């Protein structure tokens, strides 16, 4: 059997109204994964969530709150046993290692996004280059 490679690359303006589009595309990709043995509905939700959280962060931290002029690129790649997501932003970037866990005893309004991404996926890393920053997320299917 050949590998079923699906790749989706999306460029959107930095506006939250596109989160639904991005999340839905992730969900529909999962629905086409005939080979997946696990809970497909859960995986669809998780991919929707991870894409939504990562893209929302990229939009929130876009340079000078330039809603509409800057763009975010989201790249999703699925083959038979690997899910790879890259979210490119042009903001000032941040140190992923320095982001603390949420305080579960005194929960706060924000700060749960990256925790959920890490919890639901296998690996997350953030890289800064002169051109852009990339949040890269992987999961073995």
């Amino acid at each position: 059997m050949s590998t079923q490679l699906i790749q989706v690359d999306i460029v959107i303006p930095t506006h939250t109204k596109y989160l639904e589009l991005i999340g839905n595309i992730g969900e529909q990709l999962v629905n086409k994964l005939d080979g997946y043995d696990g809970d497909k509905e859960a995986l669809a939700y998780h991919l929707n969530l991870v894409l939504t959280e990562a893209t929302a962060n990229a939009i929130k931290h876009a340079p000078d709150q330039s809603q509409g002029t800057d763009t975010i690129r989201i790249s999703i790649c699925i083959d038979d046993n690997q899910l790879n997501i890259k979210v490119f932003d042009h903001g000032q970037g941040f140190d992923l290692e320095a982001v603390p866990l949420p305080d579960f005893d005194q929960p706060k309004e924000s700060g749960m996004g990256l925790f959920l991404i890490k919890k639901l996926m296998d690996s997350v890393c953030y890289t800064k280059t002169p051109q852009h920053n990339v949040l890269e997320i992987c999961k073995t299917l």
Partner: protein
Amino acid sequence: MNITIEKRDGISLLNIGEERIDAHNSQQLKEFLLQQLEQGDKQLVVQLEKVRFMDSSGLGALLVGHKNALLKSGDLKLANMQPQVLSMFELTRLNRVFEIYANADEALAAAQ
């Protein structure tokens, strides 16, 4: 944001009419809850049957409502949650913060 309100026994039953709560509309949800509490509606039951998807900002909006209700000696309970949405509360352990009920009747009974 599509939210309807029904009053029963002095308790406000809010019904969220959106399929998706994410960073695009969670601020509206938060402001709606805060406004409701501000107006003196301190006992809230938020029904989430229609909500198929909620991200961390949606959880955050409900949490702010919950905290604010407690500050005002009120309460914010949740009801009719979809299983996948409930799993978000479990992952973030917010199921220990909120009272979560199968439906509005059970939430109302618990509030008496």
